[in-house]
């Protein structure tokens, strides 16, 4: 009733909150297309100059390449580990199951700086040199919990009797996994790959600590912030990265929903009959 007339404090709070949260993000593309080297209002004119600068920066290209490799490998490894863990926790019960799962999920809430510092201390102790490989290791550590969370719901929704039926029809364990389990959890797997890829692509702290001489994209961006003239092109780069991340996350969410729908249908058909 009151909604149209009197201002609702909760609505005001919500709007203020959203502005606070997203205004800086909106500024990014705004200045990326702004025709001035100084980041300040008022905007002077429209240009795609900063994007062209990106095109001709070799250091950037190698950073993009490094990031792509790291994110790709991280996504594969994390999703593989996540699938194993999710399957184990949904199918088998073993001693201290809750405790072990809790420990695996811990990096989700651990401050990244702590993870990064402890990893670098450990690597130093082991006498290992820093490289993209160590970045991958760090990223796998923080991505695996996300992968487990996504894949757990995919595996939990999988009716165990489907796998038994396949086995009963003469198929091997591996064949059952390939012909029944994998197709049914595939949307979850893709969603996990996309999310891990995105997390790794955007991650800065661990990459900053653990990378050797090969900078990843966020590390490269950070290094460019020291040069005021580079700022607009950093904005342009940020804009591209933002669009890419949002796109990947939306795609991941679409796959996750598809997985739920597929299994929801399956679940309702087995439940509805009871």
């Amino acid at each position, binding site marked *: 009733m009151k909604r149209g007339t009197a201002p609702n404090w909760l609505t005001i709070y919500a709007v203020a909150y959203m502005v606070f949260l997203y205004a800086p993000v909106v500024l990014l593309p705004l200045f990326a297309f702004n025709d001035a080297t100084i980041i300040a209002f008022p905007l002077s004119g429209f240009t795609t100059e900063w994007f062209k600068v990106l095109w001709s920066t070799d250091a950037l290209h190698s950073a993009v390449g490094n990031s792509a490799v790291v994110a790709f490998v991280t996504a594969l490894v994390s999703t593989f580990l996540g699938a194993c863990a999710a399957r184990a926790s949904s199918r088998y019960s073993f001693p201290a199951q809750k405790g072990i799962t809790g420990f695996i999920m811990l990096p989700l809430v651990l401050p990244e700086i702590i993870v990064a510092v402890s990893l670098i201390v450990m690597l130093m102790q082991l006498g290992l040199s820093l490289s993209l490989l160590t970045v991958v290791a760090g990223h796998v550590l923080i991505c695996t919990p996300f992968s487990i969370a996504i894949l757990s719901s995919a595996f939990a929704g999988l009716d165990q*009797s*489907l796998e038994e*039926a396949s086995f*009963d*029809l*003469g*198929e091997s364990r591996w064949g059952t996994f390939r012909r*029944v389990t994998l197709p049914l959890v595939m949307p979850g797997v893709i969603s996990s790959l996309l999310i891990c890829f995105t997390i790794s692509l955007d991650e800065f702290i661990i990459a900053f600590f653990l990378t050797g001489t090969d900078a990843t994209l966020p590390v490269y961006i950070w290094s460019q912030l020291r040069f005021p003239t580079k700022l607009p092109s950093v904005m342009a780069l940020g804009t591209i990265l933002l669009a890419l991340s949002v796109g990947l996350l939306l795609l991941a969410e679409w796959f996750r929903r598809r997985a739920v729908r597929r299994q929801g249908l399956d679940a309702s*058909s*087995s439940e509805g009959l009871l």
Partner: protein
Amino acid sequence: MSTTKPIIELRDVRKSFGAFEALKGINAVINEGEFFSLLGPSGCGKTTLLRMIAGFEPPTAGDISIDGKSMDGIAANARPTNMVFQSYAIFPHLSVADNVGYGLKTKKLPKADIKREVDGALAMVDLVGYGDRGAHELSGGQRQRVALARALVMRPKVILLDEPLSALDKKLRDQMQFELRELQKSLGITFILVTHDQEEALIMSDRIAVMFEGEIAQLATPEELYRRPATQRVASFIGVMNFLEAKLESSSDQGVTLDIAALGNVTLPYQAVPQGMNPAQIAKVGIRPEMLTLLFDPTDKAENEVQAEVVSSDYYGDMTYYSVSLPNQKDPVIISMRNTAGRSIAAPGSPVRVGWGVESVVLFE
């Protein structure tokens, strides 16, 4: 069912889950071509036994052999059995034809052969033309048929069915009971059916194993089970049984004479005493509701009669179930009477004569 070659032999099969004994030594021989049912209340271990025959779980002790071969260490995918799951377990990402052909593909059969076999199996379960449908485009009854076709197409020695009809509504269930039985007869494949529905087991089976708490209480034909239940528990699980106090009066050449509190003294031939039962141990006799008659007309006659009183009646259209109190009997007995034209329901409190025959009496320890 001309042959009586054993196809499945269960020898002292046991299964424990931790400290809990789900199966406490099952012994049974199931014959080739037989429709065999495992009947029992929820939690008695029917599914557990079926899953062990299928090979999903190993027995804790004992031996299961199929077609003369011990199945010890042989996994489900190498056993000559196929299962129809309670949830049907239709693969949701495959079409009906791919579901049915799933097992043939693992056998690496040529495509053309698979198609022919699948079409044959779909025809058997009356689903011609449904091959291209998705799993989610099927009704409950159709899913059930697909699950059955998927098992049939493998030509197994034994088909295992875990409550395959429990998800269907009454009418469809009656129809599927009939079709399943017909199919089994015409194919001659051994079926093992798990059910907790005694009516379903009686209608469909050649033989039934009644299970309670991980043990087989009685293994017999439906008729034997109904007419000669081995224990009071079996008797009340299969249909309705009236129990009357009784004890041995004397034994003679003619047979055993029992003193039944509500009915008086009666002499039964020795054949009426089940094997292994000591007549001195007899504590109860049982009589089915339809084996007792209310003698409404003064001219009605029966082998034996006793004077009684109507307590209440339940009208079921074709039948009326009367509660009748007999002399020297605490609980009233149930008597079912077919309703005939021109006979009204006896009112509560009215005196009646109850007729009964000696052959209908079952003895219990």
